[in-house]
């Protein structure tokens, strides 16, 4: 699995950081998505998929 994020699209709602905190975070400055681990371990894949589906602005692609 590879994760791509589009910070221009991101609306900083925090759904990814809430859903898959091992993999996604929000920047302290602008609250937009930060990927902590672009190639996450298999045990996080389900949460990452859920985060991508829940992302309100469609900023996460797998």
């Amino acid at each position, binding site marked *: 699995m590879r994760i791509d994020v589009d910070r221009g699209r991101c609306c*900083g*709602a*925090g759904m990814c*950081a809430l859903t898959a905190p091992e993999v996604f975070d929000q*920047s302290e400055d602008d*609250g937009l998505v930060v990927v902590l681990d672009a190639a996450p371990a298999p045990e996080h894949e389900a949460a990452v998929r859920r985060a991508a589906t829940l992302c309100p602005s469609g900023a996460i692609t797998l």
Partner: protein
Amino acid sequence: MSEFEAPVPLPTARKAGCPFDPPEELARLRGERPISPMAYPDGHVGWLVTSHALVRAVLADPRFSHRADLTHAPIGGTRVGPARPAPPGIFTSMDPPEHTRYRHLLTGQFTVRRMRRLTGRIQEITAEHLDAMERQGPTADLMEAFALPIPGLVICELLGVPTTERARFQSDMSKLMSLEVSTEEKIAAFGALQAFMLDLVLAKRAEPTDDLLGGLATAADLTDEELANIGGVLMGAGFETTANMLALGAYALMSHPGQLAALRADADLADQAVEELLRYLSVIPGTVRAALEDVELGGRIVKAGQSVTVSIPAANHDPEHFADPGTLDLHRPTAGHVAFGHGIHQCLGQQLARVEMRVALPALFDRFPALRLAVPPEEVPLRTDMMIYGVHRLPVTWDKE
């Protein structure tokens, strides 16, 4: 158009004795035609969308605009005068790129981490209000004693409204929310709030403070009017919503003793309980978008310029997405609920609202384990005709130690 297709207004009538269930008509519409013609209070004929899948599709689609000058209000009495473009700073009613510019100035202030850091302070504020209830008890109006003041104080502290000014501010705010107040009085209260915000902004410019408005006043390139309007948006969006979730959430838990017992027995259930209450209660009846071009949606054509209202309670009670949706079940999966909306306007303050609810609701029942209604359920005044559902008052009682 056949009679079957006659446009209907947004259903708001609820079955007597079922204060938590969405208006029944919504389920019928969703079953028959999840996109159906809707009659708007101003005479416009647009659409009403009631399935989870279509609600998400509309809110995620940039062909549907949130601009104030394009959308028609789905509920009467919420807009005074003709549709106009949003004033500077009212980004809730703008599209990209204007919306993005304002929103990105604010997102850093509402992150999951930053909001969780407020937990301790929100616990203190909650404890102070529970102490006051206890001193004055064993009865209270839970709206007045708990649900309104806690989010009110939290948002004031976050924005940087000085303590001395809060009383003035809260009285104008509650006028805007009351059914008993005339339109003239509401317009006056709204004007007073705008003036209040502008004064506050000017004070922050003169003497910057370490809070959200103080930070924006120094760091961001915003006019006084923009800044005052942003303050107004945050107050307006962050106060009444959370207050109604707290009061209606407490009422729902009191009415479901088995679920309440499960929550009291397991502190780890609190996060999940908050999500399920958000889904189950869906206090925001909906939001509206306007098609910028002709769009095919659920087999129908939405014409450019037509408004589409998405029903949040209908989506959150769609059996295709949530099994047995009418049951409050704190253990169910709730992922994908749209209580905070979806798309680029999804609630900016959701992480704050989550922390407020997960702190305040368990604390309430820890303090008053035998909390119950002080009146028969049919005497609890429901906000059936408001933009945000909930209760006007919630008379409660408990056993004194």
